[in-house]
């Protein structure tokens, strides 16, 4: 059966309506049914953004500072926090700074953590790589000091100084 509306696509939505005692049957394709609003009864589609939205807004509960957050806006792309909370989509790289405090809590809920530990771009990521190496060396330094391995500590300290110079 072909859709009554467009006459082209197959009808997959079959509706029987009784209005003022008059029975009316409708056979539509999904697109036309959606366009006419006949699928309204099914509500919002079940999608990742709508699920994400409930995490961002804390399932409709008000999280601390929610009132102020809603008014936040990314000055680069113009996305507001309220829009982000509705769609689950960020607008540009600057949104990550504009909504930083709120995003921390969202990211922690999604990923259990908020700090990247993976790949760094090879051409432009030099600084990030150096900083990561510095963090690693500082942790190692603390360990060898505890173990009283002072010769090793001196080597690590020299390497840290070298890397710090690179960053200046």
């Amino acid at each position, binding site marked *: 059966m072909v859709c009554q509306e467009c006459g082209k696509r*197959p009808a997959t939505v079959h509706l029987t309506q009784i209005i003022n005692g008059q029975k009316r049957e409708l056979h539509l394709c999904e697109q036309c049914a959606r366009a006419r609003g006949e699928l309204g009864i099914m509500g919002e589609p079940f999608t990742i953004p709508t699920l994400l939205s409930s995490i961002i807004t804390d399932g409709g509960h008000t999280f601390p500072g929610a009132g102020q957050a809603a008014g936040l806006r990314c000055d680069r792309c113009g996305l507001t926090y309220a829009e982000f909370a509705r769609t689950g989509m*960020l607008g540009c790289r600057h949104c*990550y700074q504009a909504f930083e405090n709120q995003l921390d809590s969202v990211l922690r809920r*999604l990923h259990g953590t908020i700090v*990247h530990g993976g790949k760094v*771009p090879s*051409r432009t990521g030099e600084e990030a790589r150096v900083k990561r190496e510095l963090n690693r060396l500082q942790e190692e330094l603390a360990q060898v000091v505890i173990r009283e391995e002072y010769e090793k500590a001196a080597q690590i300290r020299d390497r840290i100084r070298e890397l710090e110079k690179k960053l200046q």
Partner: protein
Amino acid sequence: MNLDEVLYNSHTSWMDPSGPDSDVVLSARVRLARNLEDVVFPSRMEEEGAQRVLRMVERAAEDLDRDPELGPVGLFRLDDLSNLDRQVLVEKHLISPHHAQQPRGRAVILRQDESLCIMVNEEDHLRIQSLTPGMQLDGAWRTAQAADDVLEGRLNYAFCQRRGYLTTCPTNVGTGMRGSVMMHLPGLAMVGQARQVFSALGKLGLAVRGLYGEGSEAHGNIFQVSNQTSLGPSEEEILRNLKAVSTQVIAHERNARRALLSQTRLQLEDRVWRAYGILLNARVMSSEEAIKLWSDVRLGVDLGIITEGVPVEALNELLVATRPGYIQKVVGRDLEPAQRDAERAALIRHRLRR
């Protein structure tokens, strides 16, 4: 590169049956989400921004094309393709339905053997995907990573030291990576353990979805297992976790198959041979029925019940060849569902008798 050759060919590189664990694992895939630094993300991009991204990516793709390991590749603008061609790309799992439905300002970069595929201006500016036959997540990661490096030679990515690669959706931030393993799990489904296994996977931070069919019912017992989180651990750690868990699922599936074979051999053989008989003889076949019967026949081949006449490669190809878009592409015109069902039955008979 000739796109039509890709579209008319129901074979893709992941269908090669020589991949590791290919009795259970159909393919492994790694996807990297990347965005350019100075352009707003596709969610807020105007036409002009999209065209700018396309121009920048086009130049970077020339480097991919020249790369001896990765190339040659072709870049195809989606609004230059017909609806049907885009649908076939979706059926081959090369682009997402979302990408196909809104073709303006969007493109796809493809290697002829389809083992590398990059969506341009989908949810993120770039979605670099690599696909391998069987369980070869590391291989997929190496290819995706190599393509990423080549593209990054020209493009400045939106990256920050603390958050990693910045993505449109916060579910992808960090590595931007989604590893996934496509598995055929008829054994677990038949012994009624599938749900139990899937709920355990959820607790380990992995997501499972049925690849065909809607909602809770998965036709064909084909499932995709993938990592849910992308921030924190390194790419290698994420993949190691995914691999370890998939290996367990594979072992469970094999156990279930062995148990079925030893306890209900006759019923199992009957089911397999009936499915094969229908595929070989039916005159009308819906895609839903085709995928159900496919699952039984594939199981029969993997368990040595059907020992000759059905190459696994031909079976794998049917996963694409029985989809509505592909059938219409081969026939060369739009078909009503009833006509498609007849063409599908004919195509299956032809392929299996070959």
